[in-house]
């Protein structure tokens, strides 16, 4: 048994950290939040494409590196709260590769190289539709429907749209497409409501489509959990550093027992998230029969854990904790996005109960 990553993946993790610290550090995240209309750095995402990152989740003989590498990379991105659609893109590339369809394969090549942004459009207004039986339809070579909270839906080059008939691919959406931005708490993670009436190709149907969507959700939850791990890990680090330095009443506030216990509780959340996230990623590779269950466990835990840790990061910073200038709020905001999307905590609790099984 061994918990550490093997050499290849550890190396990838390390080089990803260096890349991010150099090209997309936290200060850059702040700049993107403040200034960029797309909510992310296009050049950096192009660079990620050149380096092959979007293909992480492809089968190994197709250049992928598997779920553990994926989790390690997403956790590193969480440490700098990297803004942008990387997670959705990596999921899109994986889903395209699972479609037995030529247009999908072609687009997949471009997407993994960072030349096209493909995201899945799945959610619909929950008061009017059932996620398992979408209102959106594929008929006569066109897809028609309305989707909401589509990640980077206004900036995508292509969309994988879930329809009642299966998974429809819309490339280069044109006049029949409109996107209304849905700005949320997290300035650097953009969503849109889209209305679509465009030519499309049905790239997966029936069982195959259902399997791809389930896989997309599972891997999305895994990636989000890993992102949450990175966010809270860094939030704890900056908090421990801050309370170790900052003095009040003549002592470092980190010497006060109440803050020490708070930090200890934060550590418990972070380390338990680490165990759960990497275990889920490992099961995705090595024990697929438990992967759906362990991923639900990881996401349900990590969402609530990060909310606690990032909230306390603000509290322990005191007054400066609720200034824009200090970093804790960036973590809190991204946490909210990752916690509520990719299967909310509440949804994952229900899923974990339903999927419960012996794991030993």
């Amino acid at each position, binding site marked *: 048994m061994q918990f550490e990553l093997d050499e290849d993946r550890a190396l990838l993790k390390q080089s990803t950290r260096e890349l991010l610290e150099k090209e997309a550090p936290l200060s850059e995240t702040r700049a993107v939040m403040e200034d960029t209309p797309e909510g992310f750095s296009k050049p950096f995402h192009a660079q990620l494409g050149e380096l092959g990152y979007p293909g992480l989740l492809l089968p190994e003989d197709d250049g992928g590196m598997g779920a553990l590498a994926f989790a390690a990379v997403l956790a590193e991105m969480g440490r700098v709260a990297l803004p942008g659609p990387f997670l959705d893109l990596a999921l899109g590339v994986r889903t395209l590769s699972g479609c037995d369809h030529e247009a999908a394969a072609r687009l997949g090549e471009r997407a993994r190289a960072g030349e096209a942004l493909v995201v899945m459009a799945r959610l619909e207004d929950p008061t009017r539709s059932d996620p398992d039986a979408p209102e959106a339809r594929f008929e006569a070579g066109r897809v028609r429907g309305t989707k909401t909270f589509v990640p980077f839906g206004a900036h995508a080059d292509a969309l994988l749209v879930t329809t009642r008939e299966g998974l429809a691919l819309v490339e280069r959406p044109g006049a029949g497409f409109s996107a209304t931005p849905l700005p949320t708490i997290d300035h650097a993670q953009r969503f849109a409501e889209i209305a679509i009436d465009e030519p499309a190709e049905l790239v997966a149907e029936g069982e195959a489509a259902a399997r791809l969507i389930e896989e997309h959700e599972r891997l999305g939850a895994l990636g989000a959990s890993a992102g949450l791990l990175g966010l809270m890990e860094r939030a704890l680090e900056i908090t421990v550093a801050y309370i170790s330095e900052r003095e009040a009443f003549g002592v470092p506030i980190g010497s006060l027992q109440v803050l020490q216990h708070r930090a200890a509780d934060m550590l418990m959340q972070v380390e338990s998230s680490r165990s759960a996230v990497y275990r889920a990623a490992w099961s995705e590779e090595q024990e697929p029969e438990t992967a759906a269950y362990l991923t639900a466990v990881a996401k349900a835990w990590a969402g609530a854990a990060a909310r606690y840790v990032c909230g306390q990061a603000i509290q322990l910073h005191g007054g400066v904790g609720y*200034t824009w200038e200090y970093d804790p709020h960036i973590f809190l905001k991204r946490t909210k996005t990752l916690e509520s999307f990719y299967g909310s905590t509440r949804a994952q609790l229900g899923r974990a109960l339903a999927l419960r099984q012996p794991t030993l």
Partner: protein
Amino acid sequence: MDLHFTPEQIAFRDEVRAWIAENLERPFSLEKRDPKHDADSLVEVRRAWQKKLHAAGYLGMGWPAEWGGRGASEADEALLQAELAAADAPQVPNFLGISLLGPALIHHGSEEQRRRFIPKMLACDEIWCQGFSEPGAGSDLASLRTRAERDGSDWRITGQKVWTTFGLWSDWIFVLARTDMDDRYGGISFFLVPIDQPGVEMRGLKQITGESEFGEVFFDGALAKGDHLVGQVGEGWRIAMTVLSYERGAASIMYPAQFDTQLDGLIRGVHEAGRAERDDVEEKLGRLVVENEVMRGNGLRTLADLAAGNAPGPESSIEKIFWSEYHQRLTDSALDLLGPQGQLVASSPSARDEVDWAYEYLWSRAGSIYSGSNEIQRNIIAKRVLRLPSGK
């Protein structure tokens, strides 16, 4: 035991309610959503609202008649604040001036100071901000280092203050500054300082909500006239502690009223999302309702104690902890219950219009920190209410 307000108080409450219905154009959350507004024009909305309140006699109601008061009780003040909060009326720019500087001048200031400053403060012709906190002295206020040095009969102030609410729009700031470096408490004095002068630089301090209601201010030999010292040299700490202890009762039923309005919005939102029938939603909403009502019960008890002549003691720490942590639980739950919809910022056309949940969620993180962090409040309860022993 009697938790009824008097018929006179109820009549006053009804009068206020009718007055608000007549005078408040729309809830402040809707003002903030209006694209025509920027930070400056929102301050003018607040200023206009303060002028209306002042004209109606609703400011400084407990002060002597000479200074605009009407001998109102804590209960009257509390009922007023509750009605304003329930209606989501704008906060007035001089809320800290009125609650802190007003009493300081009335009890410790000179007659000239009162005449010079109080009328313009009430009428919002001058906006005041507070200069107590410093970057290095959060919870440990007495460790402040801004200093005031004599310059003939005047004073020169040097140092930095933070959390100067509405600082960017203020004309004056009331400042605690050190006149003796060696006397921790007795070396602090209370000054009135005009902002529009060379030695003062005010900067906006952006909050996690993206707004800059707070400021930070740098004094570099700023001038405070000799007759703008409040009380005597060295009395600043005592004055500040006294005024900080006033008006605790006024907020006691304000927060529950404000949260009730938000709860209304949440319950409506949950119904519209078709989730109200779920047992887990029922349980969470029920818990929010119960906690808010318990908070109101605490507030009524505080008012009753005040009415019975019992001064509010360190128990006010309980109220501070309660409302600020409730606000976090409320917004946390709201974002869970409303789903992604609840995270939309107010400028989104799809955002729910009753409550700006995204803003509330972020802003709620501040309440447990400002006005004495909740850690400090718990220290106070342990030491002054429970009388637990001190360490060695």
